[in-house]
Structures are given as C-alpha cells and as structure tokens.
C-alpha cells in the first residue's frame, strides 16, 4: 500500500476552521514534544542564561558599567547554541520523521487539510519550544535584574527587546533546520544527528577556511557566527563582529524560510509504504 500526500483544491471550509485544525495539531505536537530531553535543555537554558545575566548585571552594576551590552554574555558562551541545538533536535528532529516512520502521517493527511496546514502546525510547535528556550530565559533574566533594581528599567527593556530579536531569529532558523532534516528520514535519530553534525561542521569548517583564506564571506556559512554577530550588534557590544549583522539576520531568516520550503517539497514527495 502506498499513500502519497493528497492535494486538495479549494476546501469548502472557512479559514477559521482551518486555523482551528492547525492549532489542534500544533497543541498536540507541543505536548508530544515535552520529553525529558526538551525539558532538560529548556531548563538548563533558563538556569544558565538567568544566572549569567543576573551575576553579570550585579558585577557591572557594582563597577558602575551596566549597559545593554552586559546582557549579551550568554551568547558569548558555546553552551547557548548547543542548548538551542538540543531543543531543535528534541522538539523538531522527530516531528515529521516519526509521523512517516509510524505511518501516522496518513491519518493527518486523510483529513481535509492542506499539506501547508500540516507543516504550519509542525513548524509552530517546534518554534514554540525554541522561543521558550531562546527568548524566555532572557526575558526572565532582564525582568529579575529590573526587579532587583540593578539596572534602570529602560536598559532592561532594551535588553529584553534584544533577547526577543535574537531569540526569534534563532527560532526561525532552527525550526527550518529541524523540519528540513526531519523530512529527509523516517527516524528521528538520523535527523537529530544530522542537525548537530551539519551545524557544528559549518561552524568549525567556516572558521578554518575563513582563518586561512581571509574570506569575509565564508563566515556567513556558520549560523552560530551569524547569530553571534546579530547578538553583538543588538546588545550594543563594541568591536567589529565577524559578519555584517543585517546580512547575517537576512541569511538566518532566508535559510530558515528556504529550509521550511524544502521540507514542504519533501512532504509533497513522501510515500508511506505499507506491507
């Protein structure tokens, strides 16, 4: 038995009904992805970022040098991108792969929904977890700093906004990456390892090649470098980032959208083969 993705013409349902269906699938997926790995990574993200933000703010306040740049510290650490990778893997690597592997995708697609609806729901669920992990800790940290009176409200608010910008960019990129890899296989193991391997290889490889060739374009190939450049700029840290922050932001957004588009293309070709 082979089922390919059905294509519907215009559906006789109101847009609101479609939106409710998408929400229902998204809710189910968010709960389904609340596994110990996701919760651990999110928990660590909160713990590390909040601790770094609060302690750095306290120290900077003590020496009278607290600015929005103080809040950028978590993005200097290699732990933050690693935690984002973990969340993308646990929340996203199996999101399509498991449905194809256990053939439950046939149940989804036998309903009167577009493939776009299915993908939108999956993307929204994965992005939800990434936003929780990427934006939430910074927001909480900045709020705690403001509540402790360590910094003026304006600085905390600006930092909060910076966390939202960087966090959302990271969420868009990693969501697209997770969906793309998940659509390539029917095993979440392979998708997860693929996400890790490719992102880390780009990081190391781009650094090596750029270091040797002196090329200013090669660093853009590393999403971790792009995120760091954007973070340095939005938080107002001095110095010259490795890449142009606006270009990096466009690269991350563009890559996220293209990878999601790739996942959609893969889904149009998925065949769930029975016995």
């Amino acid at each position: 038995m082979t089922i390919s993705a059905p294509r519907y013409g215009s559906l006789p349902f109101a847009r609101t009904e479609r939106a409710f269906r998408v929400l229902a699938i998204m809710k189910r997926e968010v709960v389904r992805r609340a596994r110990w790995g996701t919760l651990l990574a999110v928990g660590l993200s909160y713990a590390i970022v909040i601790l770094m933000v609060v302690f750095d703010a306290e120290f900077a306040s003590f020496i009278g040098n607290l600015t929005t740049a103080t809040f950028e510290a978590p993005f200097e650490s290699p732990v933050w991108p690693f935690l984002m990778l973990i969340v993308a893997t646990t929340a996203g690597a199996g999101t399509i792969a498991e449905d194809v592997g256990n053939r439950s995708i046939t149940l989804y697609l036998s309903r009167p929904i577009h493939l776009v609806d299915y993908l939108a729901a999956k993307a929204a669920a994965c992005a939800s977890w990434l936003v929780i992990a990427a934006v939430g800790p910074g927001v909480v940290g900045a709020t705690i700093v403001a509540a402790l009176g360590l910094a003026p409200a304006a600085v905390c608010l600006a930092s909060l906004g910076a966390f939202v910008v960087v966090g959302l960019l990271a969420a868009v990129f990693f969501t697209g990456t997770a969906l793309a890899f998940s659509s390539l296989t029917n095993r979440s193991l392979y998708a997860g390892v693929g996400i890790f391997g490719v992102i880390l290889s780009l990081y190391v490889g781009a650094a090596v090649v750029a270091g040797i060739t002196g090329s200013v374009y090669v660093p853009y190939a590393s999403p971790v470098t792009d995120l760091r450049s954007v973070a340095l700029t939005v938080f107002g840290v001095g110095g010259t980032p490795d890449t142009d922050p606006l270009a990096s932001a466009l690269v991350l957004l563009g890559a996220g959208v293209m990878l999601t588009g790739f996942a959609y293309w893969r889904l149009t070709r998925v065949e769930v083969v029975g016995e």
Partner: protein
Amino acid sequence: MIGELTRCGAVVRWSFLGTIRGLRVVGLAAFAFVPSLIVLSLVSVHSAAGTLANAAEGLFAELTLPIVVMVVVLVIAVAQFRNEIDAETLVYLSDRSITRPTIVLGKYLGAVAASLVLVVPAALVPLGVAELAGGTPYAAEVPLVLLGAAILAVLVYVAFFLFLGLASRSALIIGLIFGFLWEELLPMLPGDFPRVTFIFYLRSFISGVVPGGPLSGYPAAVPVPLSVATLVGIAVAFVVISAGVFRYLETAPGRESA
C-alpha cells in the same frame, strides 16, 4: 568454541552489511567527506602548500575527531540495538541458540568495521589531498597517528554508544549531550576534569606521537602507551557492561498486541 565463533562471525557480517547500505550510509559518507571537501576548497583558492598541510592536520583535530567521528559512530552504534528493538526484529537473533553476550560482541565488531569504513577515509583523505596539491610530504608518523587515533576513537565511542543504545530509549539525546557537551566542554576545565573524557586520551595519544604542527597543540599529559591502554580498556569495559545489560534486557516493546 568454534560454534560460538561461527555464530559471532555471522552476527558481525549481519551487523556490518546491515549498516553499510541505503541512504543512511550515503548521508554518513557525504558527511565524512566534509573535511576533504574543505581541503579541496582551499586547494581551489590556491592556498600555500604549508597552509594546506596545516589545515588538513588542524581539521582532523577540530572537525574530524570531535564532530565527524562522533556523528558517524553515534548513528551506527546506537542503531545496532535500538533500531532493532524498536522494529521488533531483534527477536530473530535473541530466540536462537546464540548467547546474548556473543550477540553483543558480534554487533560491536560489525559496528566498528562499518565505522572504520567511513572514518578512516575521513581521517586520511584530506592529508592525501593536501599532499598531492601542495607537494609537501608528511612525516611518516602523521598519517599513522591519525589512523591510530581514528581507530582508537572508533573502538571506544562505538563501545560507549552501543551501551547507550541498549540502556536507554533516549540514546540519541544522551549521545549528543555526551559527544558535543561532555567531550567538548570538560576538556576546557582546569584540573583533572579533562581526564574523565575519552577525547583527553585521544589527544594525548596524538600529541605524544607527533612532536610538531597543529596536532601537537594539546598537552601530552598521559604517555602514549597509557593512553592506548586506557582507551582500549574503556572500550572492553563498555562491551562487557553491554553484554551484562543485554543479558537481562527485555527486547519486546510495550503492550501493543498482547
């Protein structure tokens, strides 16, 4: 004894052939080719011979060993048991007259063989490309030490991830945390923290053999023979532990059709 060897050999062959096939191995091979691809890209921009040589060695230390080997071995080793338990095909092995420890040994050896097929070229081809393009021959110990490090890395990581695949349904996440957090961050800490990682002994082995160049950048804190013995000992220990775990492991999934 001969009977057990026959059985073990059959499992090794089964495990090896079952791993080296399909799109999975194509993906892994493509990934293992990345270091070579990077060296080729440097050749294409006419980098100097010395730069190519250093880049090839540096890539082994920064990319091949900590990332490529980790990814390849994680996928291959975890899949040996975890995939078969999830797919309910392990029963065909476990209900035979072969002992469970022999199954573990056979799967381990098969996974090692399959991993080496992918990892050894990843370690040596960039050197070959750099040498051919730059014309500067390496000292004899460089390819040998990379080959040795690749083999030792495969031996110890396959054993550990094989154990993970048996012991946990979340082997992927634990493997990723171990491979990319534990093995990467702990070596950066002061004191004796690095000694609880495998990569510490791998880097000691490399630095201990190669006196100069990018590969000697790590402290040779442990003599080479001790590094080798420690890594082999850890591999053997995890294979034995895996055999013990598998002996008492239930290999059927939860109640789906009772």
